[in-house]
Each structure stands twice: as structure tokens, then as C-alpha cells.
């Protein structure tokens, strides 16, 4: 078994939104950044992987196991972090220890307590008394206390200061050290991923735009700039998305197309720009 997650052609139909044909693989031992603008379908995809909502098509395997038939087995080894805690806010951190021991057969109380100490979380405090950063650490403490081999994070860093985000990256890099642990990290703060992510899956408006090695992802796009007169219909046809301003324009193009237009300034793009311009392009902005 060499993959942590295999997702193939999964889809989900909602009244106002459709997720269709999302396919990607996360090899064991690596970090995958899952990116896309708000509303692209990242949380829906994660919920499909976790079997929290019913899928309308496709297959999902985690650790090589079909995710519905082996739901409990998979979840014993999967740690999840959401953008907000999933506990009763009146519970103390000790209560969480008791609850998790009831749900996870390999729950290690001693590790949980050690993690609370390490993260400087007071066990008698109630969940509602914790700051955003502490809640993230709490969810990580829980994830690490039942020997999770896969960590799934859904927008964990919105609302966190740069120091906390930095600490999280360190934690994730440490987590995958032995090559047996994997991370799926959905975020719209892509500067975090620009550094540590090995793979990127990029979705927009319920569709898969790219999945593969992060370095290759960045290399397949170019940020092109030019003057007003350079924005010919031919150029426009090859732009994924662009923005016009007073003296010219800038936009995103696939690298091979950018080579057709040597008159344009072409440079390596940040992941953010790729997302922003793809979004603009889809929405006719």
C-alpha cells in the first residue's frame, strides 16, 4: 500500500453547486496542499473522503481501503482538524480525553496529556475559553493521541497570526519525517504551501484544475504582463484570466503558450496569482 488517499472521479450534486470528477492521489509520506478559492468545493471534497456526506459518484480509498466499507478502520488512523473545534464548548480538555477514549480504540491518554503540556494547554480549562490558536493546537493534540497516520486539515489557519501558522508548518514537517505519515492540507492561504507542500491539487468551481507535484504546478504557469496594445485577441484567447489597469494588463497563461508571445514580460507566478486569475477567468471578471 503506497498511497494515503486515492480519490477517483468523485462527484456531489447540490441544488446550487456541483462537484464533478475530482481525481487525485496522495502518496504516503508527503504533504498535499489542497487549494482553490472559497466555495470551490474543498470542504465538500474532504467531507466526501471522510464519508460525512454521501457521494453521487466515483470511488474513495484511504490507506488502500474503500472508505465506506472500512469507515471505522480508516478513522482510527485519521486525524482531522477543522477551522473550528468540534466539541461541546462547555467541555473541559479533560472531558475531551474521556470522550475520545470512548470513541478511539487506540486512544493514548498519556500522549494526549503530554501534548497538552507541550502546547501549554490547561486541562481544566473549558473549550470555549480557548483562543483560535489554542483550538488548533487542541485538535492537533487529539489527532496525535490516537496514532493518526493521516492528517486532514480543512482551512486550519484562517484567523491565525503568522507565528501560529509558522509553528503549524513545523509541526507538519515533523509529522511526515518517517515517511509513514501523510498530510492533506486545504487552505486558501497559499503562502504556507509555497514552502512545504510536495503535491498540489487545485480545484475551482467544483472542477479539478490541476493535481500533481507542486514545483511542476508552479512551473506550468507564467505571470505575463504587457501594455494595453499587447492585449490582442490572440493573447486574450490564451489567457486563463487577466486584469486590466491604467497602463496595461497582467494575467496567467500556461507556460507553453507564454512562449508564443515573446513580447510579453513573463515570470514565475506565485500560487496565489494562479488561483486569483483562474477564478477571475471562470467568472468572467
Amino acid at each position, binding site marked *: 500500500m503506497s498511497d494515503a488517499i486515492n480519490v477517483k472521479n468523485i462527484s456531489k450534486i447540490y441544488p446550487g453547486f456541483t462537484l464533478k470528477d475530482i481525481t487525485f492521489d496522495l502518496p504516503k*509520506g*508527503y*504533504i498535499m496542499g489542497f487549494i482553490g478559492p472559497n466555495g470551490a468545493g474543498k470542504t465538500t471534497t474532504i467531507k466526501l473522503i471522510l464519508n460525512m456526506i454521501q457521494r453521487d459518484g466515483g470511488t474513495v480509498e484511504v490507506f488502500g481501503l474503500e472508505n465506506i466499507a472500512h469507515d471505522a478502520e480508516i478513522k482510527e488512523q485519521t486525524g482531522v482538524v477543522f477551522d473550528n473545534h468540534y466539541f461541546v464548548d462547555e467541555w473541559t480538555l479533560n472531558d475531551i480525553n474521556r470522550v475520545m477514549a470512548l470513541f478511539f480504540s487506540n486512544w493514548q491518554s498519556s500522549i494526549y496529556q503530554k501534548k497538552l503540556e507541550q502546547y501549554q494547554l490547561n486541562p481544566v480549562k473549558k473549550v470555549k475559553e480557548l483562543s483560535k490558536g489554542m483550538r488548533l493546537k487542541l485538535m492537533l493534540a487529539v489527532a496525535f493521541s490516537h496514532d493518526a497516520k493521516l492528517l486532514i486539515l480543512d482551512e486550519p489557519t484562517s484567523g491565525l497570526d503568522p507565528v501560529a501558522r509558522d509553528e503549524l*508548518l*513545523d509541526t507538519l*514537517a*515533523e509529522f*511526515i*519525517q*518517517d*515517511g509513514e505519515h501523510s498530510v492533506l492540507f486545504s487552505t486558501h492561504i497559499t503562502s504556507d504551501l509555497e*514552502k*512545504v*507542500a*510536495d*503535491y498540489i491539487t487545485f480545484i475551482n468551481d467544483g472542477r479539478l484544475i490541476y493535481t500533481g*507535484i*507542486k*514545483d511542476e504546478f508552479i512551473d506550468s504557469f507564467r505571470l505575463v504582463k504587457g501594455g494595453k496594445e499587447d492585449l490582442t485577441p490572440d493573447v486574450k484567447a490564451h489567457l486563463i484570466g487577466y486584469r486590466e489597469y491604467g497602463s496595461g494588463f497582467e494575467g496567467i497563461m500556461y507556460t507553453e503558450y507564454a512562449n508564443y508571445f515573446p513580447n510579453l514580460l513573463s515570470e*514565475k507566478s506565485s500560487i496565489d496569482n494562479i488561483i486569483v486569475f483562474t477564478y477571475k477567468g471562470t467568472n468572467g471578471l
Partner: protein
Amino acid sequence: MKITLSNLSGIPIYEQIKDQIKSQILSGELKEGDKLPSLRELARDLRISVLTTTRVYTELEKEGFITNIQGRGCYVLGEGSELLKEHMLREMERNLSDALKAAKIAGLDISEVHQALDLMNEEKQNE
């Protein structure tokens, strides 16, 4: 082993790491038999992707600078390495070809090129 990365230089990260390791091996800072940090340790320390460090080590191994011993890690190969010799030979040929091109543009003939080469060699011996 010392690696310093620049995000602004425009040079791909993996190339920067490769060049810095190579030059440290060639300068002797990294000696034959020295153990390099593991792929994952390096990725964690430099805050980069594990796939990037994998690419660096794979290419360095192909070029004969390091060797990967299964289960033990990556070690620096010394100047006795055949692969390294071959690689450096090709590099020398490339540099000589560049030198000849430059000489032609400057209007120098082959004996002047020989002279310059001998002079440079003397200076290097005296260093």
C-alpha cells in the same frame, strides 16, 4: 553542511541546493565519507518540499557526487569516484569549449589561449 537559500534570485531552489552542495564537496568543506542529512531532515530544516530534496540527492548521485546506501543514508563521494571524474571531465570540456568561443570573438589564436592557460595554472599552483 551549510545551505542558504534565496527566494528572490530567480534560480530554482533545487538548483541552489545542488550548486551549494557541489561546491562544498569540491572545495573540501564536505569530505569523502561525510554523511548528509536525510531527505526529510533537509526538507524540514530548509522548509521545502521533500520532493525537492529528493530531486537534489537523486541528481547529485547520478553525477557522482554522493552515494545512497540503502538503510543508512547519503554519503559524500571523494575525488576517487569514477562517476565524479567523468562528470568533471565533461564539465572541463564544456568550459574549454566556451573558452575557445570567447577567444575567437576576442580575436586570439590558439597559442595565446595556451599561454593564458599556463599562466593561470602557475598562479593556481602558487595559491
